[in-house]
């Protein structure tokens, strides 16, 4: 059940089933796997969230830090998203520096949040040109059972939503003391579709990812705006397919948003 060869056989099965719009795990084409969200997973993080999407397991943690603003935006802080594929996440991962997949994942999650203007970078400024808050969002993939994009963006937003702003004394962070919560003005989330044998399906599981021709991830906000688009994989999409995915993304991301309780 855990062997990569078995996944490959499943991949043939996936391509066969999809012809009659069926999926290996019995889901409807546009149905998410069950989702468990555990916020405040790590006390040492300033915000954290574990998301289990089917068997996919990711943990996001936030650390706020004070640094000098970038020269071209002296009145702004910023966010930084990092992704580490833990080597146990799949039999083929190896420990080491982030590869292309982890880099793409981190940058798409980053854009989805950044471009939505969920975080007002100007409000992160503490003293113009001198110091501002930088928000480090680090995502750890513990088990890759497919669709890391949606799981990671959900975990990242979940972590931001419970992020506390540390107290500063003489420009240094006081441990375990906080002055409030990080303001998160929007609820940007990624919704990802796979294309297999000409059919579109939501939230591909690992066997479906191995069988898919292409992937499209769409970042959306609750105001029905798109903050990110990313096509992946060797295949292609038609305009009609992309438009269909956009409509579905607005609809399905709303379901995910309900899972994020506002505390």
């Amino acid at each position, binding site marked *: 059940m855990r062997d990569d060869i078995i996944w490959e056989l499943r991949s043939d099965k996936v391509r066969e089933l999809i012809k009659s719009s069926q999926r290996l795990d019995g889901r409807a084409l546009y149905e998410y796997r069950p989702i468990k969200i555990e916020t405040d997973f790590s006390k040492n993080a300033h915000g954290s969230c574990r998301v289990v999407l089917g068997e996919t397991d990711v943990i996001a943690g936030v650390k706020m830090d004070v640094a000098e603003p970038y020269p*071209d*935006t002296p009145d702004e802080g910023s966010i930084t998203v990092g992704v580490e594929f833990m080597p146990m996440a799949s039999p083929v991962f190896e420990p080491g520096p*982030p590869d*292309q*997949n982890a*880099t*793409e994942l*981190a*940058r798409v999650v980053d*854009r989805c949040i*950044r*471009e*939505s*203007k969920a975080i007002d970078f100007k409000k992160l400024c503490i003293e113009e040109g001198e110091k501002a808050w930088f928000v480090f969002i680090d995502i750890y993939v513990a088990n890759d059972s497919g669709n890391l994009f949606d799981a990671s963006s959900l975990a990242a937003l979940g972590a931001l939503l419970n992020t506390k702003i540390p107290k500063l004394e003489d420009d240094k962070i006081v441990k375990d003391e906080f002055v409030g919560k990080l303001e998160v003005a929007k609820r940007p989330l990624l919704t990802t579709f796979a294309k297999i044998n000409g059919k579109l399906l939501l939230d591909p599981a690992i066997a479906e990812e191995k069988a898919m021709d292409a992937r*499209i991830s769409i970042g959306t*906000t609750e105001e*029905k*705006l*798109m*903050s*990110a*688009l*990313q*096509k*992946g*994989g*060797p*295949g*292609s*999409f*038609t*305009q009609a397919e*992309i*438009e269909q995915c*956009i*409509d579905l993304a*607005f609809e399905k991301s709303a379901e995910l948003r309900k899972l994020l309780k506002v505390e």
Partner: protein
Amino acid sequence: MAKSEEIVYINSEGKRVDGRKVDELRPIKIVPSVLSRAEGSAYIEWGQNKALVGVFGPREALPQHIQDPTKALVNYVYRMATFSVPDRKSPKPGRREIEISKVSGEALERAIFVERFPNTTIDIYVYLFDSNAGTRCAALTAASVALADAGIPMRDLVSACAVGRAAGTIILDPCKAEEDASDAVDMPLAIMPRTKEVVLLQMDGLIGKEEWKKAFELGIKGCLQVYEIQKKALKRKYEEIAEEEEKTIKQIDKELKKVEKK
């Protein structure tokens, strides 16, 4: 950026900051076969952007464990020279370069008949020496010409172009100043022109569906224009080659005649 609000993105005559119309590409020049040691190559100028591409392969993928017995690997490497941007870039590849390399390679994989070359790699190296927005599209456009120059069998060329928004207007092929608009949207796009299949699609910015659709369709038009420029560059090259071959044949004829005389 602080002053970007004061910029007039579209003037009273409907012209953009660099004098173009909203649906107008910057000037593009493509020259195939510019590097002698690569198996295929191309040079592109796209507005201020300048890039060189070199292609090798299909050749044995090494180390062996990366080989795929079902197809050729497409190894796309996108890099920017340290001096190609306003602030000196570190010589170490950054995360942006790594991501662009990945999505660009995937875009070309669809066009190349990779299934004909199992266990091999096709290496595509692109370096930017000057830049002003739209570099990944310029790079990908040149790379597909270099692949053709290398004689690698393809379903179609890949033609790329960005589309965006500045100050509420949808514009083709945004320049840097336009990318810095406060309401900027930037959407790099690449298609296989004969089928209009989308092989690369990325976007940042914040946009609703209707506006997006307008942008997308303008982008497709841009890609089709790029396609014509690519084909012309390749045709010109092949005509040159044909001319040279003709000369060679004449030369051989001449020498044969000399030999016959003796």
